[in-house]
Each structure stands twice: as C-alpha cells, then as structure tokens.
C-alpha cells in the first residue's frame, strides 16, 4: 500500500521537476472583427496558410484556421462557437497545420470533423495524427484501377463496375436513393477487409442516427467511421469534414489496406465553402461560388487512388454524392465534379417513381474504368446484358407507337422487361457477386423468358436460394477464380431447370407458339 503511495508521490515529483519551461517566441495578433464564424485578426505577421490559431478568450481557448493572409490582417474561420470571442482578444499562432487523430481507434465511431467523439463514448487516444490537408500521391506511386469493389447492387456491378481506387460520383435529385446506394455499398463490404468512412456533410442528425442504427444492425459499424458535420454545425466544420474523412482513410491507405469513403454530399460542401468565401470577402464568380471551387473538390478527390505494390498497394475508393436541383446536371458544381470523377451513377426520378429502384439510368451512367473492374464471371454475362438492356430501352420508346411488331422485336421487348425487373433490388439487401452473375446468366440465356414479369422477383429469390444451398462447383469457382467453367455452367443450368420444374406459374402456351413458329 505504502509503496504505491510512495511511488505515486515520487513519480509526481519527478514529473514536476522534469517539466522544463522554455520561453517560446510566439506570434500574436488581436481580433479586429468577429461574426458569422469568421474573424479578422490584426498582426500575426508569421501566420501560414491554413495554420491553426488559438483565440484566448475569457472562457478558455477556441481554435481557428487562417484562410486569408492579407497585408495587415488575417481572415480566420472559427472551429467551434464564436460567441465567446470578443473584439480585442489575443490570438496566437500555433505553428502547426490542423490535424485529426487517426488509427484503428476511429473505426466504429461517430466523430465530428475535429476528430472529437459525438457518440458519447471516450476520446480517441490513438496518439497518431494526420494533417487534414495533404498533397495527393504522385504519379510514381500510383497504379491503374484493376480490382473490383463490389457494391452489391445488381444494376451497378453489372453495368457501371467500380474498381478499388476509383472515384465514382452518385448524382441525382433529392429523395431518390443516393444515400441508400452508398450505404448498401458500405454494408456489402462486410468481411471484405475494406475500411469505410462515411462523411455526412450538412445532413440532418436524425438521418445520421438512422444510418448508424442501420449500419449497426447490419454489422457494418465494425469497419466504418462516420464523420458528422450536422446541419446545425458552423460552415467551417462542414468545410473541413471531407478532408478529415480523407485523412482518416489515408491512414489505411498508408498501411496498404483498402478503404472506401462516401462524401454525402459535396453540393452542401460547396455551399458551405461559398458561405465562408463570401464572408471572407473573396470575389464571387458563377452562382456566387468563389473562383477556386473546382480546386476545392479536385484536391479532395485526387487523394483517392490505388497505390502500386512498391508503395503498399493500398487504395481509397471515393463515392462522392451530388444533389441536383430538378435534374439539372449542367449546373456549376455537378459539372465540376462530373469532370473530376472517373464516372457517375445517375439516378433518375422518373425511374424511381415507376418503381425501378435503385433508379439507375443506365444510359447516362458511366464508369470510365469499365470492365477492368469486373471479375471474369461478371464480364461474361454483363456485356450481353448491357446490350440487351440498351436495345430494350430504344425499342420500348419506339414500341409505344404501335402494337404490330414482329416476333423478334416482341421477344426482345419481353426479354428487356425481365431484365429491367431483375435490376430491381430492395434497400439494405446487397447481393453477392456470384449470385448476381447467376441471375444475369439466367436472364440472358432465356431462362426467364417463360417466367411472368410480375413473378420475376419471387423467382429470383427462389432460384438464388437454391443456388446458394445446392451449388458445389459454381459458387466455389467464382469465389476462388472469379470465373466459372463449363462444368460450373452446367451445374447452374441444372439447378435453374430443376427449380423451374417445381413451379406452377410459368407461361406455357406462349412457349408452344414460339416453338411452332
């Protein structure tokens, strides 16, 4: 007992005597003006761009970041509440760039853009910090995208494949499933050793509470970090949130691991930056955005990449989200981000209200990486299916004018209807890639042609259950090699035919007709 007491006393004495105080030269300034989350500070002649500054207020310290360096004043964004800051308060340069804690400890947490917890759990004590702004990896360290990242969404994985290290924009109007697409992708990374970061920018906190609950339910919080800059947080927090998220993902990149980051959404980020810029009196440009709004997003998204083996082989895949106003993709921010990213998934309200969910518009959506980011099994089936789906869309528009169509066209229309039906998928229900390939295989090889359109969903569910439980060869093959052999194909055919034999709702007469014709 006494030894521990002595130990503590000695330790404390030691610590106090070890503590050396040096007189440090610091640069100080005075607050000239404060308001709207922005302060103008005089002095600070040595302040650097985006350096941390400390406001010494009567009620403790508040931190800020220098954003405008002018002749005799500095424009500062205040990270936190600016109510306690008064005119004339002292401001000190901290001689470091804004950093956030990173490491394994942040996984499974909900944090604010400064890396402080907002989930009511303990502080992050990883001891490792990354600056929030960092220059993107250079050419020498990079590699082209070659490995797929599975979103678990049939329409995306087949037609708009996404690779590790790619930046794929999700764009569309409000309330048509942009976030749902991103959340499903996060859920589908379970067991694939991909760390996920979800950055909520200017979102309602109730929505985030829902998302956290859903991710927990799906067991996805084990590998996910959520950075939350809520709708009530100041614009400065919203502005730094995506950079914080990227800094945390970069920790895994440097370790050679794969990570996925979702920015939800960058249009609100641009709005927050516009607010800051206008308050700092930077000249407004198109749509009142400042001149460097392109650089704002390009420097952020450029940090997502795939590193080559010599540099650890890690990757950051980015899924930025942009909300359009009434489908206007030619507004300023959407066009900017479209041109930065390696493709976009365009979600369309019309499709959504027709019941095609996820409402992916296959015509306007592209992935510039293309089939390099697909496994062989998927390549085999997806190419043909993409073609048939495109033909169907063309014919469907045409077929509205008349009903007298030749057999071939009718067959294509029927096939197309079934493919569209196959693309429908529920929320929070991502599908494994081998099962996706199987149902596509069934669709393009005519196995679905005598299943009534309204029964497709039911059929799909049934047949996939059969494949999961009965298949020995096919599933193993796709999982091991990414491809299926003729044997695997044969097995798949047998399972599908066996299952169809048990059904009573198949269309029989039509089949006979087509045979006789």
């Amino acid at each position, binding site marked *: 007992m006494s030894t521990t007491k002595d130990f503590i006393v000695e330790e404390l004495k030691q610590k106090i005597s070890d503590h050396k105080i040096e007189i440090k030269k610091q640069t100080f300034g005075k607050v000239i003006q404060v308001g709207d989350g922005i302060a103008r500070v005089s002095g600070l*002649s040595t302040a650097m761009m985006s350096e941390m500054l400390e406001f010494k207020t009567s009620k403790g310290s508040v931190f800020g970041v220098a954003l405008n360096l002018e002749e005799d004043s500095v424009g500062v964004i205040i990270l936190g509440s600016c109510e306690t800051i008064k005119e004339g308060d002292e401001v000190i340069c901290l001689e470091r760039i804004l950093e956030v804690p990173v490491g394994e400890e942040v996984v499974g947490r909900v944090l604010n853009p400064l890396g402080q917890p907002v989930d009511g759990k303990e502080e992050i004590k990883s001891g490792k910090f990354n600056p929030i702004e960092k220059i993107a990896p250079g050419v020498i360290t990079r590699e082209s995208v070659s490995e797929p990242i599975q979103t678990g969404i049939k329409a995306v994985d087949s037609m708009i494949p996404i690779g590790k290290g790619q930046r794929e924009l999700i764009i569309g109007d409000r309330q048509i499933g942009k976030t749902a697409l991103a959340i499903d992708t996060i859920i589908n990374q379970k067991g694939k050793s991909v760390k996920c970061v979800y950055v909520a920018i200017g979102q309602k906190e109730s929505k985030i509470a829902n998302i956290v609950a859903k991710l927990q339910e799906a067991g996805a919080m084990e590998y996910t970090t959520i950075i939350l800059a809520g709708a009530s947080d100041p614009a400065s927090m919203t502005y730094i949130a995506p950079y914080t998220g990227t800094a945390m993902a970069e920790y895994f990149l440097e370790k050679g691991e794969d990570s996925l980051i979702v920015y939800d959404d960058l249009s609100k980020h641009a709005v927050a930056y516009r607010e800051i810029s206008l308050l700092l009196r930077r000249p407004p440009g198109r749509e009142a955005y400042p001149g460097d709004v392109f650089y704002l997003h390009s420097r952020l998204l450029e940090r997502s990449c795939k590193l080559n083996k010599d540099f650890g082989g890690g990757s950051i895949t980015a899924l930025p989200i942009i909300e359009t106003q009434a489908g206007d993709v030619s507004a300023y921010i959407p066009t900017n981000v479209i041109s930065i990213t390696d493709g976009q998934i365009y979600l369309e309200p019309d499709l959504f209200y027709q019941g095609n969910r996820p409402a992916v518009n296959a015509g306007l959506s592209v992935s510039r990486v293309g089939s390099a980011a697909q496994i062989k099994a998927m390549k085999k089936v997806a190419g043909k299916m993409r073609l048939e789906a495109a033909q169907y869309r063309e014919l469907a528009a045409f077929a509205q004018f008349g009903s007298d169509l030749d057999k071939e066209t009718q067959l294509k229309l029927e096939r197309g209807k079934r493919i569209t039906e196959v693309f429908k998928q529920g929320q929070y229900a991502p599908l494994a890639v081998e099962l996706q390939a199987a149902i596509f295989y069934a669709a393009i090889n005519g196995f679905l042609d005598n299943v009534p359109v309204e029964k497709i969903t039911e059929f799909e569910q049934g047949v996939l259950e059969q494949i999961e439980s009965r298949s020995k060869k096919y599933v193993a093959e796709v999982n091991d090699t990414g491809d299926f052999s003729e044997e695997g194909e044969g097995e798949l055919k047998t399972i599908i035919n066996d299952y169809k034999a048990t059904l009573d709702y198949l269309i029989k007469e039509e089949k006979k007709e087509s045979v006789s014709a």
Partner: protein
Amino acid sequence: MKATPKQYAQTLFESVRNVSKEEASKILDNFSKVLVENNQVSQLEKILSYFSNIWNKENNILEAEIITARELNADDLISIKKFAIERAGGKEIDIKVIVDKQLKGGFVVRLGDEIFDSSLKNRIASLKQALNN
C-alpha cells in the same frame, strides 16, 4: 468616393514628414478641417492607429510592452529591456511598462507582434497541460 482611414493616415504621414513643428501644427489644422468637412471625425481613432503603424514602420521603430506582476526595481527592468533590444534586431524600440497582477509572477515581453511569455500564469498552465497528458 470616400477615402479610407488608411489613406488619410498615409496622407497625413507624408505631409508631416520632415517638417518643423510650426508647419506641422498648420498642417494638422488643415487636416482636421478636411476631416470635419468630409464628415470623417468618427474615423479619427482608426486613422490615428494606422498613422502610428505607418510612423513606426517608416522610422524603424518597434513598439514594445513589458508586462510584470509587480513594480520592478531598476536593475531588473534594465536587464529585461536589454533582452527586448537584443530581440528587436537593430530596430529602435519604444517601451511601455505595464503592471498586471493577473500574471502572478514573472514577466511578458511583447515586441511588435511577437510575444515572449515567461509569466507564472503561463508556466502553471503549461505544467497543468503536461500533467494532464
């Protein structure tokens, strides 16, 4: 267009530079008339602060403040002043001595926009932080 306080200060500085006291007082008379005519008397404080900045910059003067917890004896004050002059890098310094009981002990030297904090208050804060970590 209205002239800014900075422009007033610059003009004032340039017109009173290298002039005798009598001339200067004449210039100041005129200057105050201009201010009244232009309805800018309310800006006087700002103009003066800019003026003092410009004056110091042009004449290579640094403003310095020595803040102590209690009145210092002459020897201590001289050694602190010496420290400030050393740090000023060849510039002349204009020293003000202030007593602030809140420092608890030690002293703080402010030189232009640099600050050397050797107060007891700062040391306690730094020790507190070191023990917390």
